[in-house]
Structures are given as structure tokens and as C-alpha cells.
């Protein structure tokens, strides 16, 4: 049940315990306990809405930063990754295989703000040898959710 429950919550975190219980063929209390335990174990790390910021007035910009790092003896990438993660402006940090080391998503109010953040806070870290900033121009899909109007259900209302 654990995997099925997690799949359902990753699709829609706002299902009520009752709805989850109905779908999984169990009772509300079991669901409540399972969720509590998954939160405690750190499997469920948080709940957030998927927002199309482009459709909101106070717009913001985001960028993907490719960072090359000299790993430190004994610590590898941990220290620098954790340090970058601690910035409020940083949305996500991934250690990558391939041509660069850290993939960092940064969000800010304006292009300049993001550019300055990268220049002042990320590029200046000792073990960082280079950064490449790619601004996001348009989002089409975010966390499995399409941000454009897809095809409507054209099956009609009644079909026997």
C-alpha cells in the first residue's frame, strides 16, 4: 500500500484521508497513521502547490545554473552542495553525471537579481571553478502538470 499511497499523494497532495482510504480500499485511520509515519521517516518531505508563476502578476524568473566544482578531499561535493542549498534563492540542487557537477535552479524577481546572485554568491565559492547560467523562457510542464491548455475531453456527455 505504501507505494500506491505515495503515488497518489505525488499526483495530488490534497486528497483527503477518506478519499485515499476509499481508493486504496482501507480506512481513514490506517491512512492517517501511514502518512504520519512516512513524514517521520522523511519519505514525505513536504507538500507544495504546483504554480504557473507566468500567469501571476508579480512575475519572477528562474534559471538553471550548471556549476563545475573541485571536490574536496574527504567531503566530495557534500559541503559545497549543502552550502548552495542553504540559499533562499535556490529551489533545487542536483549532483550530476556528465559535463558538469551541480545543477542548481535559482528563482528571483528579475534577470538582474538572479545574475547578481550567481555572480556574488555562487561563482565566488572557493571550490566552484565555473558557472553557466541558462534562463528559463517558458514552462510547459512542471512536476507532471501541464501548464498549457491541453486537449479538451471531447467524448461528449453520454455514450452507451
Amino acid at each position, binding site marked *: 500500500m505504501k507505494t500506491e499511497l505515495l503515488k497518489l499523494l505525488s499526483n495530488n497532495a490534497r486528497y483527503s484521508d477518506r478519499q485515499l482510504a476509499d481508493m*486504496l480500499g482501507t480506512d481513514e485511520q490506517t491512512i492517517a497513521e501511514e502518512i504520519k509515519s512516512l513524514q517521520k521517516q522523511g519519505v514525505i518531505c513536504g507538500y507544495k502547490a504546483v504554480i504557473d508563476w507566468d500567469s501571476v502578476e508579480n512575475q519572477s524568473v528562474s534559471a538553471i545554473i550548471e556549476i563545475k566544482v573541485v571536490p574536496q578531499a574527504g567531503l566530495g561535493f557534500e559541503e559545497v552542495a549543502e552550502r548552495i542549498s542553504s540559499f533562499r534563492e535556490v529551489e533545487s540542487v542536483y549532483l550530476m553525471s556528465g559535463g558538469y557537477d551541480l545543477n542548481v535552479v535559482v528563482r528571483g524577481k528579475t534577470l538582474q537579481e538572479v545574475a547578481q546572485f550567481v555572480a556574488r554568491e555562487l561563482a565566488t565559492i572557493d571550490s566552484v571553478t565555473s558557472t553557466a547560467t541558462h534562463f528559463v523562457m517558458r514552462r510547459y510542464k512542471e512536476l507532471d502538470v501541464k501548464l498549457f491548455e491541453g486537449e479538451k475531453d471531447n*467524448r461528449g456527455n*453520454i455514450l*452507451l
Partner: protein
Amino acid sequence: MIDYSRVLNKNVSEIKPSGIRKFFDIAATMEDVISLGVGEPDFQTPWAIRKAGIMSLEKGKTKYTSNRGIEKLREEISSYIDRKQNIEYDPENEILLTVGGSEAIDVAVRAIVGEGDEVIIPQPSYVCYEPISVLAGGKPIIIETKAENDFKITPDELKAAITSKTKVLILPYPCNPTGAVMEQSDLEKIADVLKNTDIIVISDEIYSELTFTPNGHISITQIDGMRERTVLVSGFSKAFSMTGWRLGFACGPHEIIAQMTKIHQFAIMCAPTTAQYAAVEALKNCEEAVADMKSEYNRRRRLMVAGFNRIGLTCREPLGAFYTFPSIKSTGLSSDDFCERLLESERVALVPGTAFGKGGEGFVRASYCYSTEHIIEALSRIEEFLKTL
């Protein structure tokens, strides 16, 4: 002026249009409706299947196929049925590809039923069996299955319906709209009644993949002595979300399939070529996609059954297909009135049980071919509607 009523075939003109015309006309044109009224998967055809269709077009597979369908697909169907039901059909002469399961039912009935022959049809059930039997010159004999029997057909009901003129029993399980399935022991009892007769079963198993019992779908062809007196009908529409591809099939004794093939050959030529090539991929490589859709249907099914029971509409657990069939008797309304008023006041479209035969009175059909969010919204509107009664 031509008097068309004298021109047209009475067998055709006397067939009632399906369902409740007035309600359907209103529902069809109304906008902003939260519908649970559609008997068609909401999933897209799995991409691998679509790609196989596209590839076949790129390779120029755009001609007629043999009347019975391409050999490769008949072989795949043979091994699929063997895998699922442990029954062997010879791809050479016991399998016919048709334009949807509907055509398979039509040609099976036409191959067996002649003027005055009787066709036993359990209802509530899908709407095509009665008119197809009438068009073949047959006489439909309706068995009204009962809610207290979980809408299964019982051996006593069957015995009472059989006469010397009975040619065919239609066995529509898993059942649209009731969601009923016939389990092994139910089928054995039906088989006992039929074994010493010449009655042929046309077993419409189009929903077989969507069976939610622990043992999964059991076909009547698996019961001793039944393979020789059964035409098994199925297709790709429901399990593989391929409704628009129009591809079904029939498996049966070659003596029957040969006659069906003749009708099919003269009326249709062959099933759609692109769909046939795509279907090979469906049977070879799409078991996982089918299983994923099935578990999604299962979650929705549980959500809907629990939802209806909670808001006060008694709903038996449907064990197959993708419909729930809750009772609306507690409201005191007829099925038609219930659906009309619900549509008007809350803009939710359900199908009155009476669309599937008189025995559907007191019930409505709600399909769960919709997202869970959609189902939750519809249920909450139905709950609001019930409060106003």
C-alpha cells in the same frame, strides 16, 4: 411523393432508437456538464501501439488484408487467449478479426439466427443485442437479471426462457452497465443447462481485462463442453483504450467462424489494416500499460462505490467493466426523472438504468472513465442534489 414508411424495411423502422431520446438530446447539447455518462476509456491509446500504427503506414501497409485479418495478429490473439484463459483456438480457421466487438456480435447472430429463432438476452445490458437479433429475423427473449443475484443470470431463469426455438444465448459478462461478472461456479451452472442442447452462446467478453475478482476473468469457453457451443467475442477498445481504431475479434468452432467470415467478407471486406498492425504491438508488448490502466480504474471504482454508499445511494460492488450501477430507489424517483433533474439542477450527467432495458428501473449508470478529481466533483454535486429532494 414516396411513402417512405412503405419503402423501408419494417424490421429496421420498428426498432426504437436507443435509450431515452429526450434526455439524451438535452444532455448531449448541454455545456459545462460534469459527466459520468461515457462508456469509453479516458486514457489515450498507449504510445507504443500508436507508434506501431504509424510505422505500418510509413511502410505502406495501406491495402486490404485477408478477410479474416492478418496472420500475425490471428496468431497473437490465439496465444493471448491461451495465455489468459487457457483455451486454444487455431489462428488458421477459428479466429476472425472484425470492426469492433460489435461487428463480431452482429455477424455471429446473423450466422446462427434465422427467421423466428429465439435469442435469449439478459438485461440490463448493452443496447445492441436486441436490435441485432431483430435485424437477423430473430425474436429477443429478455431475462431481467436481479440486483439480489448481483445481476447474474441464474440457471432457473435460463431454463424458464428456453423453448424449442431458442438458438442463441447472449452472455454479456463483465456487464455494461451493471459491472456484474459470472464466476466459475455461476458459469458451471449455466453450462449444465446448455450442455444437452444445440443452443450457441455468444459470449461478449469485451471487458474481460477489467475484472476485479481475485481469480480474474473466467470465460464460459473454459467450462467443460462449452468451447464447442460458444462464440467468444472480444476486442481492443476497452482494455487497450483503442475505441476509435475499431478492432474486435471472434473465436469459435471453425464451422461457425467460416459462416461468419462469409458475411464479414461480403459486408466489410476486412477490419481496418492500420488497426490490425497496431494491435499486434498491443498484444505483444503492452501488458504493463494495460495493468497500469486497470489499477487506476480499480482506485476510481473503489472511490466511486464508497462515495455513492456514503451519500445514501446503495451501490453494490461492481466486479468488472468500468461502471458503477447504484440504486436510486431511496429517492422515490424514477431513473429517468432522477437523471433529468440531476442534469438540470447540478449539471451532472448519468445514464438512467432504463436505457439498458426495463430491468434497469431504479438504477443509474455512472462510468468511472474519468479522473479522480472529476469523480470527486461529480459525487459532491450529486450529494447536493440529494439534499434538495
